[in-house]
C-alpha cells in the first residue's frame, strides 16, 4: 500500500530523517512509536507531502507520490489527522468538514451522514466555529474531517491527545472498525442501553467493508496494543524495529521508548 525508501529530510541544516524505509501492506493497522522528537510527525508530513523530502521515494498503491503535491495525495485517498488537530479556527464545524468534499471526487455536496454517526457531538455543534470547540471536540472534528475524504489510507498523529477516556476507546473502536482488515470482531459489552451504545452500533454499521489502512502515531501503549496489529519503532530519524504487535517486547520498549 505505502512504501517509503531511503527517505532523507532536513529542517534547514538539521538532518531529521535518515535513509528511512518502511512498508505498510494494504489493510494493515500500523502503530509508529518513538520518543518525543525522533521525527514521527516529520515522517508523516513527508508522506502527506507537507514537507519536502530531500531524497528518497514514497510509493502508494504502486505509484510514486514523490512528485505529487499534497492535495493530489489527498485525492488519492490519504486522510491526515495532524498532531495538534489543526482545525480551521474560523470555519464552523460544518465548514471544516466540507473542506474535504472536493477531494472525494464524487462531486458530493453533502457531508456523509456516517461522520455524525461516529461523532454525534459534531452534529450538535455544526454552526459553532472550530476554534471555539474544546480540545477534545476539536480532535473528534479532525478525525471526522479526514473521514470525509473517504480515505483508503488514514494517517493519525497522536489522535488521543487530550481526549476523554470513553471517547479514546471509541476512537480506538473507530480505527479498528475502519481498518477491519484483521477481521477481528469487535465486542461491545452490552450493558444498559445508552447513547454510547447507539454510537457503537452505528460504527459497526458504518463502512463494514471499508478496510482502511491505518498509520498511527501514538504514545499510549495500551491503546496501541488494542488498535494496531503491527508496530514500527523510530529513533533518531530511523526505523529501528518493527513487526507484529505481539513482538513488541519489553526490551524494545525500554530501549527506544523510555526516556
Amino acid at each position, binding site marked *: 500500500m505505502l512504501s517509503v525508501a531511503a527517505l532523507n529530510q532536513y529542517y534547514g541544516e538539521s538532518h531529521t530523517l535518515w535513509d528511512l524505509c518502511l512498508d505498510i501492506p494494504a489493510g494493515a493497522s500500523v502503530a509508529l512509536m518513538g520518543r518525543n522528537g525522533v521525527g514521527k510527525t516529520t515522517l508523516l508530513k513527508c508522506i502527506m*507531502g*507537507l514537507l519536502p523530502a530531500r531524497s528518497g521515494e514514497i510509493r502508494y498503491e504502486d505509484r510514486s507520490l514523490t512528485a505529487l503535491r*499534497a492535495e493530489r495525495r*489527498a485525492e488519492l485517498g490519504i486522510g491526515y489527522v495532524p498532531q495538534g488537530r489543526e482545525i480551521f479556527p*474560523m*470555519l464552523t464545524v460544518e465548514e471544516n468538514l466540507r473542506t474535504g468534499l472536493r477531494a472525494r471526487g464524487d462531486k458530493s455536496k453533502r457531508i456523509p451522514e456516517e461522520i455524525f454517526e461516529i461523532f454525534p457531538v459534531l452534529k450538535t455543534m455544526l454552526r459553532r466555529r*472550530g476554534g471555539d470547540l474544546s480540545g477534545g471536540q476539536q480532535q473528534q472534528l479532525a478525525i471526522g474531517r479526514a473521514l470525509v*475524504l473517504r480515505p483508503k489510507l488514514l494517517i493519525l498523529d497522536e489522535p488521543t491527545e487530550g481526549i476523554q477516556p470513553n471517547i479514546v476507546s471509541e476512537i480506538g473502536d473507530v480505527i479498528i472498525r475502519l481498518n477491519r482488515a484483521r477481521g477481528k470482531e469487535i465486542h461491545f459489552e452490552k450493558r444498559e442501553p445508552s447513547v454510547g451504545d447507539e454510537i457503537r452500533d452505528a460504527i459497526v454499521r458504518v463502512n463494514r467493508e471499508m478496510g482502511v489502512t491505518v498509520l498511527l502515531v501514538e504514545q499510549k501503549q495500551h491503546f496501541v496494543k488494542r488498535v494496531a496489529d503491527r508496530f514500527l519503532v523510530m529513533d533518531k530519524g530511523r526505523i529501528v524495529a518493527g513487526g507484529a504487535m505481539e513482538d513488541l517486547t519489553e526490551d524494545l520498549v525500554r530501549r527506544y521508548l523510555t526516556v
Partner: protein
Amino acid sequence: MRPLIFGMRRWCIAMLIMMMPGLCNAAADPGGPFADALARLKEAPLTELGEAVDRLAETNDPAVVPVLRALLDGRLYYRKDDGRVVFGDPAEDGLAIVDVLDGEALGIVGKFDLKKIGINNALRTRLRETLGRLELAADGPAQRLKAVEAMSKSLDEENLELLRARRDTETDAKVSEAIETALALADLASDDKAVRIAAINALHGSLNPQALNRLHQLLEKDDAGRFLEPDSDVRNSAQVAVKSIESKLTVYRAAETVFFGLSLGAVLVLASIGLAITFGVMGVINMAHGELMMLGAYTTYVVQQLMPGHLDISLFVAIPAAFLLSALVGIAIERGIIRFLYGRPLETLLATFGVSLFLQQLVRTIFSPLNRSVATPVWMSGSLEINGALSLTLNRFYILVFCLMVFAALLQVLKRSRIGLEVRAVAQNRAMAKAMGIPTERVDALTFGLGSGIAGVAGVALSQLTNVGPNLGQSYIVDSFMVVVFGGVGNLWGTLIGGFSLGIANKLLEPYAGAVLAKILMLVFIILFIQKRPRGLFPQKGRAAEA
C-alpha cells in the same frame, strides 16, 4: 410621482434629431430680411450679437429656430473664403457643412477654413429665452417645459402674454403647472391685493425655487424698516406659504443628504470590497489595490477609445474588460510575488508597495501623466428629478445600484461556489488545507484574481466620478483600508455596512463642519470606535479569533 425628466443633454440630442427635417427645407429668400439678419449675425461683435439675434428672430422665418439652436450649440460657422453661413457637424478630418440659406450640403472642410460664430454666456441665456418664445408651441412637452422655464426667467409683458395664451391650449399637466407658477409669480407684483393673495395661494407648496424667493421678498423690510409688502393679509398668507414650502424642503433636503451619504458610501464600498477579499480574507496587505482600480479606470478609457461611436454601451464592455484585466494582473502579482510570501503577511506590504509604484509609473509611461478624459454616457448624465427640490444625480444613482449588485454577486460567488470556503480554509491553515485536498495554489490565484478583478470593476465606476490618472489609486487606498478595518476584517457585510455608515455620517457632518473637518471627525470617530470595538463593526469573536 410625476414623470421623470432626464438630463439636459439627452434633451438636446432629442432636439437635434427633431430639427433635422426643418433644417433641410429651410430655403429662404437670399435677398430677404432673413438673409440680411444672418449676415449681421456673422459680422456683429460679441457685444452686438444680441441685437443681431433679436433681429433674426423678428423675421419669423421658419429657419430661425434651427439657426438659433445651432448658434446655441456652437454649430454655426461661416466660411472664411466666401462668407457663407453654414451648419457644421464634426466629421472625419474636419466638419461636414450645410449652407443655412439653401440647405445645400457643401461637403467636408477643415477647421481652419471656417470661423465659428461664437457666443457667450449672457447671450446663451438670451438665446434660450428667444428660443423659448419661439418654441412655446413645440410638439414635445419636454421642449415646451424648457421653453416655459427659460421664459420665466424674465417675465416681461410680452412673455406673460405668450404664456397666458399658451395656458388655455396647453395639454400637458407638467407644462401647465409650470405656466401657472410663472403666471402666479408675475401676479405677485400685481397692484390688486386679491390677485396677490390668489397668486400666493397658487404658489403654496410649490418647489420652484423662484417661488420661495419671491415669497420671502414679500416678508422683507426695506432699509427704513418698512415692509416691502404693505398689506398684512398678504404677508400672512405669504408667511403660511413659506412655512409650507420650507417644511417640504426640509424633508427633501434630508432625503438628499441620505442619498449623498449612500452614494459616497457606495464609492467607499466599491473601493474596499476587493480589498475585503485580498486583505480581509487572504490576509495580504495589498498596497497595490488602488492601482488595480486605476487599471480598471484606464480600461474604461481604452474601451471608449476603441469604440468611439458607442459611448452608451461602452461601460458594459468596460466592466467585464476591466474585471478581466485587473484579475489577470492580480493573478500575475499573486503568482509572481505574493505566493512566496504566505505566512509573512507584513512583507506583502513591502512587495505590493513596490508593485504599486511600478504600476503607477507604468501607466504614466504608457498614457502620460495627464488625466484621461472618460466620457459619461448620456444615460448616466444629469439627474433623476423627483421634484423641484430633490433630484438624484444619475451617475451616482447607478453607481449605488451597481455597488449593491457587485456586492450581491460577490456574496453569491463566495457562498455558492466552493471557492468561498476554500479560500478561508487556505488563509487559516495553508498546510492543513492542502492535506484536505484543496489545491491551494489555484485557490490563491483565483481568489486574488477575484479581489483584484473587483477592484478593476470599482475602477470603472470611479472613472465616472473622478480623475482617471496615475494617482487614482493612491487617493482611495487609505480609505479602503479604513473601511475594511472599520467593518471588521474578514467580514464582507462589515465592509458594506461600514462603508455606508461612514458615507452617511460624513455627509451628515459636512454641512455643519465643512468638508475638511467632517473628514477629520470621521477619522477621529474611527479611532475612537476601534477602542470600543477593537475588532471592528462585526468582529470575529471568541476563542477562535484569539489564536
